[in-house]
């Protein structure tokens, strides 16, 4: 499977993956600020899918209508929508696109739910590989603590309640996240995850991220096209 660079796109896609509470969103936000302040063409993909697909997804979740198969398919639909209408045009236009989560979230989640891994991967094979993929690896307990300390209202699917792991949403969430972490780690080598130790201070992690990005991507190529003054 090829990256966007290998496909000849002028843009580059950088994705972050990790458990909820691993701090990955903070890290990608700081990366975005750094690139923006250099005046580069950067776009943070917020996963805003079309209202239509979003409606179907939230209806399915609210009414707990989803099986592992339809959960997988409806998220693939949602991803395809973003991919075709947002990511591809931006990458064609030469942007550095930052994605908070990419197809590996689906690989991990759907596999834990019991979908055949080959089937899930086959569905997502229309998507090119990220040019860089950071995985923020925090200890399971630390990630859980960051999420659960706030005593959030865990949603049914978010907590993995559909897997009937436990009747207690918090306990279910713990087991579910543990299994997702196992899946991430199993994919780590195959998909060349750039593993960042997320137990370190935010600044230390961001230094690693920025250094790696600067080393691998020729940032000077991504300046804004300034409109040329007419003489």
């Amino acid at each position, binding site marked *: 499977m090829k990256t966007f660079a290998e496909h000849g796109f002028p843009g580059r896609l950088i994705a972050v993956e990790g458990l909820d509470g691993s701090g990955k969103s903070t890290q990608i936000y700081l990366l975005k600020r750094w690139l923006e302040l250099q005046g580069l063409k950067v776009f943070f993909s917020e996963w805003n899918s079309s209202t239509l697909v979003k409606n179907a997804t939230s209806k*399915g979740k609210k009414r707990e209508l989803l099986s592992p198969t339809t959960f997988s398919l409806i998220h693939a639909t949602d991803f395809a929508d973003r991919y075709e209408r947002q990511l591809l045009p931006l990458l064609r236009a030469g942007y550095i696109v930052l994605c908070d989560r990419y197809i590996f979230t689906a690989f991990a989640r759907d596999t834990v739910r019991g979908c055949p891994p080959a089937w899930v991967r086959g569905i997502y094979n229309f998507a090119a590989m990220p040019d860089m993929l950071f995985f923020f690896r925090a200890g399971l307990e630390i990630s859980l603590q960051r999420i659960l300390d706030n005593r959030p209202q865990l949603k049914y699917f978010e907590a993995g309640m559909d897997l009937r792991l436990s009747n207690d949403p918090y306990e279910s969430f713990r087991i579910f996240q543990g299994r997702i972490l196992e899946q991430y780690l199993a994919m780590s080598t195959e998909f060349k995850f750039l593993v960042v130790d997320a137990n370190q201070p935010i600044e230390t992690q961001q230094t690693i991220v920025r250094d790696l990005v600067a080393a691998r991507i020729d940032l000077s190529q991504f300046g804004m096209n300034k409109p040329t003054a007419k003489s």
Partner: protein
Amino acid sequence: MKKISPVSAQKSSRQIVVPRSKPRRFYGLGIPGVELSKLAGKLIVVEGADGSGRSSQISRLVEWLEGCGHATVQIGLKRSTLVSEELELAQQGNILSRTTLSLFYATDFADQLENIILPGLRAGMMVLADRYIYTLMARDMVRGMDGAWLKNLYGIALVPDAVFYLNVAPQVLVERTFAKNQSLDYWESGMDLGLSRDMFDSFLKYQSIVAAKFRDLQATYGFTIVDGHRSPDEINQELRQRIETVLAGK
């Protein structure tokens, strides 16, 4: 109290045939956790373009099957609880790109597979499908989607007990469509493909391409091609005979 001998009371009911079961399989990796041996009913698919007589043949089959003492349930495209409304809207607005629409349809199919087809079969019913994965695959293939990708995607589908494709020439489809509706349908005319700006022209071209794709799929999936130019009675007669064979487990 008058005793009713079982023979004289319900003479005809003794002739109700309990369908013989046959080993089942999925086309590909299937749906996780399904016990195939428990799917006692029969899955019968009728495929064909709009105007091929699909729906009226299915109504007749339902009547006949129920008359013979079999419980039936029906499915069709864009009928799932999960996404049918959104799919309809998406089509009206033509706002989704190819892969997205394809996956949306697959979601609709999977929802009905898990909530109607599989429970129906488990309960020993005759499931009649007004179109199945073949239409979805054919439509996507003529729009350039990768065949191997579709094959994996629809590997969730159960192999039906019988698949009938009602083959009707595009020229006849046009006439039947005009007999029923005021105008040709945007999607059934393949207008999104840009084959022709003339809708009539596009309809004929599109239906020919789809029919050719069905012939390709026939080679892989081996469904029965039924000549849809004959009278509805004649067609139904053929379908009944073939279904009787299926019920006998042959």
